[in-house]
């Protein structure tokens, strides 16, 4: 009867104003608040979901993007299972900065094998008509940087938001299944995301 729930930490990174907070709120509360304040400090929301038979609690972290706050933002990168690199399709600068965000994340999250870390790229504000970044450009960047999944989202009209988070979860679960096999079974089980062995317990 006891189904174990995995807790996954995902973090939204990207320039200020690309819509990170709006995406998080859309996903967790299914609302879009046009009056939302800009983020000060660090916030997170939890969301329960089921992906491919796995019960998951997503802990979604959202931070303030300004350079000045970097030192008080980066400590929270630690322990992330997935990073959602976000830009806005109507802001080419935010797209150009993706690489910097990725670097900052890898450095401060202290990721051991950056090539294998699950990033997901979001191009937000799909509903806006004046695009500055084309789908092709974005797709290409994702391919060249590590074959990351790419989603064009709109926090405003909810397009692709849930899909993107679900894909993030899948990536993490897939990663964990690989590494789980590497841990000898007789050692103390220290893995911090112990999963119920799928179907047998649920």
């Amino acid at each position, binding site marked *: 009867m006891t189904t*174990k729930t*995995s*807790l996954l*930490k995902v973090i939204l990174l990207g320039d*200020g*104003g690309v819509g990170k907070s709006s995406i998080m709120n859309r996903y967790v509360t299914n609302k879009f608040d*046009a*009056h*939302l*304040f*800009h983020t*000060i*400090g*660090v*916030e*997170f929301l939890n969301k329960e979901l089921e992906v491919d038979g796995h019960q998951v609690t997503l*802990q979604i972290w959202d931070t*303030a993007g*300004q350079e*000045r*706050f970097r*030192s*008080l933002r*980066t*400590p*929270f990168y*630690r*322990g*992330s299972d997935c990073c959602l690199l976000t830009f806005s399709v109507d802001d080419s600068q935010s797209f150009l900065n993706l690489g910097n965000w990725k670097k900052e994340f890898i450095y*401060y999250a202290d990721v051991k094998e950056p090539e294998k870390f699950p990033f997901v790229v979001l191009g937000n504000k799909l509903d806006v008509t004046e695009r500055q970044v084309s789908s092709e450009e974005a797709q290409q960047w994702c391919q060249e940087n590590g074959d990351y999944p790419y989603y064009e989202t709109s926090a405003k009209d909810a397009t692709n938001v849930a899909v993107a988070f679900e894909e993030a979860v899948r990536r993490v679960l897939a990663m964990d299944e690989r590494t789980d096999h590497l841990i000898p079974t007789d*050692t*103390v*089980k*220290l893995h*911090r*995301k*112990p999963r119920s062995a799928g179907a047998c317990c649920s």
Partner: protein
Amino acid sequence: MSAWLSAVCGGITHRDHAQVLFEHEGVFIHPGSEDQGLEPDLLVSGSLRIIDKDAEIMVDYRPLEDSVDPTNMLCAGKDSSSVVEWAQSSGERSAQLLETQQSYETEWDMINAVTFRKRVCANGEGSLQQQQQPVQERSRWAFSFGLGDLRSVAVKEEGWTFIIFRLKESSSVLPPLHFHQGGSTEFLDSLRRFAMLTESADDVSCLMVSTPNKALSQSFENLLDDNNFGLVHKFKKDPYVTTLGGFSKVTNYIFDAFRGTEEQHQRPPEEVADLLGEVIPGLEINQQEEPGFEVITRIDLGTRPQVIRGSPVSVEDWTKQQDQEGRMTNVPELKHAIFKGGLCHAVRKEAWKFLLGYFPWESTTEERKALQRAKTDEYFRMKLQWKSVSEEQERRNSRLRDYRSLIEKDVNRTDRTNRFYEGLDNPGLVLLHDILMTYCMFDFDLGYVQGMSDLLSPILYVMENEVDAFWCFVSFMDQMHQNFEEQMQGMKTQLIQLSTLLRLLDLAFWNYLEAQDSGYLYFCFRWLLIRFKRELSFQDVLRLWEVMWTELPCQNFHLLVCCAILDSEKQKIMEENYGFNEILKHINELSMKLNVEEILQKSEGICLQIRNCKDLPQSISAILGLDSAVSSPGLADPGSGPALRTAHRPDPCSNGLFRETSSNNKVAFIS
């Protein structure tokens, strides 16, 4: 002698590496209830502690008098009137299964600690002899044991909660501890941090204890050498461990790891915390002042005085304080009235200029007009500077470009539900933007930093005038400047000061936060950066700010406001056993749920409480500026209302709805 026993015998007498993780006073033993011919209502009052001694977790109970140390290392000298004096005549009583033992060192415990000897208990003789210690009668009730030797804790109710410890390897029973003054939940919660407590199958009131024995009995170094131990790899891989000052965090981690599946993700918050600790240097939580017991700085603050808040200063009150030429008179009294009750909205436009220092209190109306003329010129000169930058120039000026882009984004995300800033083409938005851009010209090094739009918005709302709002904002920014600078030194200093204050006010809560890796109070970041702007309703922010700008009743009053809010939340936080993440979330979600008058009342009470304390540590006096401060009028008397007001009159406030149509410099009630 086992490692366990030596730890107990060495006891808590060596102060190095010992750290009090939990402490609760007012825990009683009822010696008489053991049917030993004692007076039935005889009570022994003492304090129960959980101590980290060289990475071994000890539970320690000692009667009140025992905690008083003649060397004054411990300032726990509390009112002992609640303790019924021990009857010297009752020499017969035998503390069941207790063994009194001479303590070897006496620096900390001058007493004869009663300990439980594994060896003896294991004999199964059922009863232990007891040495007669007539001089230190009360001490016979002191006991202390390693958590690893605890088998179970029975939790019972009898109108109050009492608990019974049962040790392993012995059938012995320690005297029940009665929590007449609450605290049993907190104690058990603290215990849970170091051991797993599971309800016994046949008795739900009995909690079975399991601890990671191996981790407990081994030193950190041993752990590293023990290749069979699953944690080793992680430790070795992780360089941050080597920077740890004490063992407590390591042991916490081990415990968390052992708690295993239920407690997920213990490690990331702790890593986050360690990194934050590096960012906020100077807050060496485990090394503050002397090593050893943190309880040494405990000070009895006495009760918190009740405070009555006043009503807001009205237009009439304000104008009465102006002389013929328009100079403000009785300024200390006026400030005190504003501190006690704030301002009616109609007075704000005028009064804020004085409070913020844009207008000197002693200036005449004429002088102020001249000042405004000069300041208007100066403002537009700076405004023209950014207005006249061509697109070409801006392309080559990345800093200006970045400031502008961020300001544009943030203006669209500041107080948009306020009628002054709502809708698409509200002139309020343009003013907010222009003032922030002009501020970049005024202080290009600082430029625009997120949070500044929050500080400006209420000022502009009150001033309804671009130039006045700008200069008032400049004054406010003078106070807040350090928060926004590159190194955010202001933020770091404030967090450290706040931690120092909280430690004095509420050691138990402070210890709790520390144990949850939250001792540097990162979760107060937003409160401090923008002075509660996001935590309170817009109208309440206006009230709080004008009160703070009086600079009464002490320096850094806003830190006591933090303490007041935390004081209201600590019960919830501790009862729910919130960890690092939950604390952050809980505090973030307080936003818009707070009541400004309640908070101000409590904050002032805290200030009075601290002020009344005789042996205030120097660090505290320095933070609150209590050293040099000549007591302001009426401050010693919390109940005294401001002299300004007449007793009963209707609230003259227009409750925030006052609005002038024109935006000239003239204030309606000055004619």
